[in-house]
């Protein structure tokens, strides 16, 4: 890959490599990121040291401005850090919704004071953010949300219920869409930041069909949000909220990160089903469907590479990005279905020693993956976006 200023970059690579070597605790080499696991509530001393080192250095968010504690580096340097972390078997301990979604949005729309207050703790990984968007009555039709924010002079009084607030049980702060004007739909929504550590906030984890509880119900009862924590104009939150969703979708369509991509389907099929005298998976019907899924995934990967090349190249923004979420999620869901089919009854093992770890993960991953075509803009909403915004197809007018 040809990067300009190659010599400088090579010098930077050496610097990054040396710094990671000096700071990454050897005990964590090759270990998974504790961020998305239960153990994050009780990190080890080495995990804490690594988070602090990366947080102080600003390299967890290498391209964010140095003024707010970020790395202040170029995209090319950011990629080098990613590569060198991978090379060292190190994970990036700085992550979560603050990094993926809220930070980039606040950097774009926040005031100087808001950035100085809220960006550094994200950079350092000192606190976590959760997303207060959906409500029981506002899912795909998000703009119908009803959580009220009443103007009380120096603060807003918040009352209402949010649902699917990911990671709310671990979060100290919530970025939230609230209703500040009941006479309008989209133009009556504001984007406010709510401190979760106050009496008017109650969080109840929701257990999902795969046994995990990544989402919560969050109840606001006379909770407070200071006026200084209104982002953007009053009743101007919809634009900001939508922008944030774009960051969310670009994160979700990364694909591989959503599931452990362990063994390939053909490896599993060879193990569980066996092969014929020509070395082909013995079940012809299954083999054909494995091939189809394998090729669908390869086509998706080629598209991800193309979109990345185009975004760096001369051809302007790539239309390919709009299709990424649906393409990735449908292919990965089919992959999960095939995995448990290949494993047979063993692929339905919920717990106990009769099933290996791979089998128990397969069943939970299959079930958990069903959420991917629902959250972050459902498959149907994505299709609406493609047909209306990209293809220019019109809205339905009232029938007469």
């Amino acid at each position, binding site marked *: 890959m040809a990067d300009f200023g190659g010599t400088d970059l090579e010098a930077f690579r050496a610097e990054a490599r040396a710094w990671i070597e000096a700071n990454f605790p050897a005990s964590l080499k090759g270990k998974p990121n504790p961020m998305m696991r239960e153990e994050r509530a009780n990190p080890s001393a080495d995990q804490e040291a690594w988070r602090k080192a990366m947080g102080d250095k600003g390299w967890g968010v290498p391209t964010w401005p140095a003024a707010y504690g970020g790395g202040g580096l170029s995209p090319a340097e950011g990629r080098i850090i990613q590569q060198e972390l991978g090379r060292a078997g190190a994970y990036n301990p700085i992550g979560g919704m603050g990094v993926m979604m809220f930070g980039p949005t606040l950097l774009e729309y926040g005031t100087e004071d808001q950035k100085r207050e809220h960006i550094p703790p994200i950079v350092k990984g000192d606190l976590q953010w959760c997303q207060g968007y959906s409500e029981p009555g506002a899912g795909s039709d998000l703009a119908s949300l009803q959580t009220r924010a009443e103007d009380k002079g120096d603060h807003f009084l918040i009352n209402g219920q949010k649902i699917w607030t990911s990671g709310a049980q671990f979060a100290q702060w919530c970025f939230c869409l609230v209703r500040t004007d009941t006479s309008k739909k989209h133009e009556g929504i504001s984007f406010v930041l709510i401190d979760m550590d106050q009496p008017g906030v109650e969080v109840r984890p929701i257990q999902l069909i795969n046994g995990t509880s990544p989402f919560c119900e969050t109840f606001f009862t006379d909770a407070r949000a200071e006026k200084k924590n209104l982002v953007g104009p009053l009743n101007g939150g919809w634009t900001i909220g939508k922008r944030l969703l774009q960051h969310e979708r670009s994160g979700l369509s990364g694909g591989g990160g959503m599931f452990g991509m362990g063994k390939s389907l*053909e490896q599993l*099929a*060879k193990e569980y089903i066996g*092969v014929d005298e020509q*070395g*082909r*998976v013995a079940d012809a019907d299954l*083999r*054909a469907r*494995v*091939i*189809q899924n*394998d*090729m*669908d995934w*390869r*086509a*998706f990967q*080629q*598209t991800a*590479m*193309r979109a990345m*090349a*185009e975004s*760096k*190249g*001369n*051809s302007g923004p790539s*239309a*390919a990005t709009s*299709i990424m979420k*649906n*393409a990735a999620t449908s292919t990965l869901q089919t992959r999960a279905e095939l995995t448990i089919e290949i494993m047979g009854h063993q692929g339905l093992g919920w717990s106990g020693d009769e099933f290996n770890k791979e089998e128990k993960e397969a069943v939970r991953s299959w079930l958990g993956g069903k959420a991917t075509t629902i959250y972050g803009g459902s498959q*149907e909403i*994505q*299709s*609406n976006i*493609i*047909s*209306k915004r*990209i*293809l*220019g*197809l*019109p*809205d*339905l*007018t009232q*029938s*007469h």
Partner: protein
Amino acid sequence: MAVLSEEQSMLRDAAKSWVQEKSPVTAFRKMRDSGAELGYDAAAWNEMAEMGWAGVIIPEEYGGSNFGYLSMGLILEELGRTLTASPLLASALAAASALVLGGTDAQKSEWLPKIAEGTAVGALAVDEGAHHAPDRVAAEVKGGKLSGKKTFVLEGMAANVFVVSAKGDDGALGLYLVRGDDAGVTRTRLHLADSRGAANVEFKDAAAEPLTGGKDLLEKVLDRARAGLAAEMLGSAIQAFETTLDYLKVRVQFGQVIGSFQALQHRAAKMFTDLELARSTVEAALAAIDADSPDTPELVSLAKAKMGDTFHLVSNEMVQMHGGIGMTDAHDAGFYLKRARAAEAAFGNQAFHRDRYARIQGY
């Protein structure tokens, strides 16, 4: 769209404007209605050759520009949009590849300059039945004379030189050059649904010169032809989709344009999604050929299978979404539907390439 060099952008723009001005779908319709024996318009082919398109993959010392396969793909994509029929794929891509990769200096000097200037047409004669099966070859060469029957030879009516797969004296599969004017060559015009210039060709003790490279050469040449055809299919599928999308925005029923119905919107979104994915695979296959990458065979099979599925879907939807008018011969939809199936079947259909992809991956 791949990130293009300046030369590639110029080549694509030139192809786009020539196709729009000189070769709209009405030109294809005229050619079909005339019952043209060659299956293409010779005057249009002359113009294409004059612009240097027939020399895009041919080295400069043999009269070409050596721009590569991605560049050739850009032209084929534009031609595909309006179903422009020409020997560009069979001659300037497939037969030229066989000569570039496996020809002696004498063979290259004899044929490549003529192919590059469009004065000679080459054709690839590999199949012997109704399905693409490059391993199943009965044609034989004995003492320099080739005998056998080849089916569905693209541009078989126009060919001045055939690149023919056959078993040699040692029983090994290889490619041979046979001159079109050899007394042992008999052609039968095939009238196929897509109105292109296909022929069955019978060889009886025709003088055959071997190309170097055996079965490997055959596979390489086929992969180049498949990737080029996939690029042409991409252009056809995109145009079929855009024509359909335009119709969804103007056709009114129940007091609304039908494109406002979500049932149709989501099918349009699905087609767009598949076209974007297919484009990625086609461009990756062409770029792999240019880079002589070891994963070329699997990327080519990926592209041909994905493009086949996508063109299949879009051409069916084109007819369905146009309703009754799409069933009439006066409308273009039928042309795209017929071309889709012929292009799918050529050089291996989706089933062929899915199986090949898995075999390459070892399952």
